[in-house]
């Protein structure tokens, strides 16, 4: 039993370090997303400790030594309506609380920007590359690197030419599928300049693992001159 606990703690520990949070978008909706995630993680860890702890305590406290002679059986309790009500209502309340908090943060977490100065990028997914088109109809100078300005709402529409794909840059935006026959929307506002990586997140065939994404977020003047250079 003790070994089990140690073994378990060993595996639990890294998860409960900062590795327990997902790659969060470096973007304006990141805080809200992070809040929802941390609330859920906190609730789940608390429940695990309480219920798992109760299970472990029960297993240890009430075990009998094998080989102990015949003894009277324990009280043959069949159940308790009060407990049933209790452990139905309390979880409902916890879940309602989590859901309520999620709704509260949902507005800020929504990533579809309708701002008038949003920069619209059209993404096309196909086996096995993503291609991009700026509002002026031009692709990036390096077709596999999307360049966008920092602190600007980016509005992404995505289509597929063949099978299902998914555009996912963990540090910038939640994932969105590219489904043939429809146009999907996502968006983000990057808060830091830098280079961000991602890859296709919907199985699309033998080249799925190689379908990578690179986004350069640059400051606005740099972006202006970049756009001017696109011929």
């Amino acid at each position, binding site marked *: 039993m003790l070994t089990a606990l140690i073994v378990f703690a060993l595996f639990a520990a890294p998860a409960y370090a900062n590795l327990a949070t997902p790659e969060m978008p470096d973007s304006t909706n990141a805080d809200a997303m992070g809040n929802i995630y941390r609330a859920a993680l906190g609730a789940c860890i608390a429940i695990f400790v309480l219920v*798992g702890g109760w299970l472990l305590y029960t297993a240890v406290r*009430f075990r009998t030594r094998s080989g102990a002679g015949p003894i009277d059986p324990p009280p*043959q309790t069949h*159940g308790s309506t009060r407990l049933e009500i209790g452990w139905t209502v309390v979880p409902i309340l916890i879940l309602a609380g989590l859901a309520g908090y999620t709704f509260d943060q949902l507005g800020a977490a929504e990533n579809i920007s309708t701002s008038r100065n949003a920069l619209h990028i059209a993404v096309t997914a196909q086996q096995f590359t993503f291609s991009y088109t700026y509002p002026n109809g031009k692709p990036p100078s390096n077709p596999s690197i999307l360049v966008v300005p920092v602190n600007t709402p980016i509005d992404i529409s995505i289509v597929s030419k063949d099978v299902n794909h998914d555009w996912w840059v963990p540090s910038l935006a939640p994932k969105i599928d590219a489904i043939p026959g429809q146009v999907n929307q996502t968006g983000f506002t990057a808060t830091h300049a830098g280079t961000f990586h991602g890859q296709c997140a919907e199985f699309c*065939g033998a080249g799925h693992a190689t379908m990578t994404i690179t986004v350069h977020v640059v400051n606005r003047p740099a972006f202006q001159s970049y756009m001017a250079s696109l011929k």
Partner: protein
Amino acid sequence: MVTETYPTQAPAAPATRSDGLWSWISTVDHKRIGIMYLILTFFFFLVGGVFALVLRLQLSGPSKTLVSPEIYDQIMTMHGTTMIFLFVVPVMAGFGNYLVPLQIGARDMAFPRLNALSFWLLLFGGMVMYSSFLWTGAADAGWTSYPPLSVQSPGHGQDLWIVGLHILGISSFVGALNFICTIHNMRAPGMRMSRLPLFTWTIDMYAFMIVAAGPVLAGALTMLLLDRNYGTHFYNPDHNGNVLLYQHLFWFYSHPVVYVMALPGFGMISEILPVFSRKPLFGYRALVYSTVAIAFLGFLVWGHHMFAVGFSEPVQIWFMLASMSIAVPTGVKIFNWIGTMWMGQLRFEPPMLFAVGFIGLFLIGGLSGIMLAIYPIDQQVTDTYFVVAHFHYVLGTVPVFAVMAGLHYWFPKITGKMLDRRLALQSFWVIFIGFNMTFFPMHGMGLSGMPRRIATYTNSSWTIYNQIATLGSIVLAVGVLMVMWNVLSSLRSSRTAPADPWGGYSLEWYTSSPPPAHNFDDLPPIRSERPVYDLRRERALAREGAAS
């Protein structure tokens, strides 16, 4: 250990039945069919497990070339397909076949010949699917087989996959009919539904869910087959078709199927905990209601597998709330199980160890499920290894812990031999450590951005998680082999099992180990959900009365 034998039972010596190969091939005895199911499904478990080891070896480090992406995709597809359709779903039918007639005091299933057909269709369907490896290659679009990829996939692998799955669907549907008729029409006098052992209750729900959901999958697969081979355009958007139609239909079946797989596992746990706690099941009614609630709610949540496809917000919210709500009846189950143990006299025989291990690990999976139900979180971690972690903790624990618990519990009844107790306890710990080493790091993998179904990766920050998982999978494999060795060597051992080695409660423990062909010479009175316990108690009281 209760060694009392019931004097009215025939001894375990075989009567006039033959044991030759033909007698097994032509059998319609539910016990023999059950055994054949268990052997076949366990074989597929090993095959699926070998596939998993290949995947894990390929992913143990970045940029490995153990297998090409094309082969990887076939193995990835067939790992999931085999584990779900050729192992976990039918293994429950195997245990159900063996136990349900015994637990309800019947002589056999309602339709013994149909029962045999179900088994042979399982074998046939599996063979059809696997023949693809010998031809143009197996299906390679994932066990979910989404179009357009699965429509475009060249060769015949996908077609054999679809046809094989249709055959398995018929096997499963016909088996479900059998279970429902048996449970509802063939119970012994006194065996009211309110006295049914939990395992049989869960098989009843298993069967109803298969009847309701199976035909939807059949429809989705038929349209896929037609699109692939007969020029239809159900899923082709260039000709008015709809790609998402498949996903909706597929998940409308496949979400309930996870409860199809899990509920009988829960049933096994619900039988084992009381016996090894020397108490009745705590909250029998609540456990039945929560089983039914899970089965029903399971049909309302399929969209949580599709949170990234671009649903409108009201739809996302519906699926989020409905999915979160399943945690309530599931929690009720867990609490009642611990309540069964509470203030009991716990004997940690192998079945009990596996059962308690199951509860703890399933709890982890259930909690990660709540996180996934919250769609803003899901949009970060869906299609990553976080989901792979989640479903192995809820679904992988069912065969690896719950079914293992059931195997160790009912092995004496089925074979008339006892498993080696020490080896069983050791294999539990090896399996427990291996399982967690394999799947817990996958939470971290997903949170670090590692998507699913990639044949390789270059991001070296994922390597350490993958190395631990690969090592864990080898440890897990060793544990499974230990159980297998225990089974095989115990069959040849001299440790014969009495009718009731554990002090069981339900009717299967009344008859000999193994039971005679006709199951029962007679039955005890059935006045509660614990007829054998009641009989034992009556006799103990009578003895005390006579002694005083």
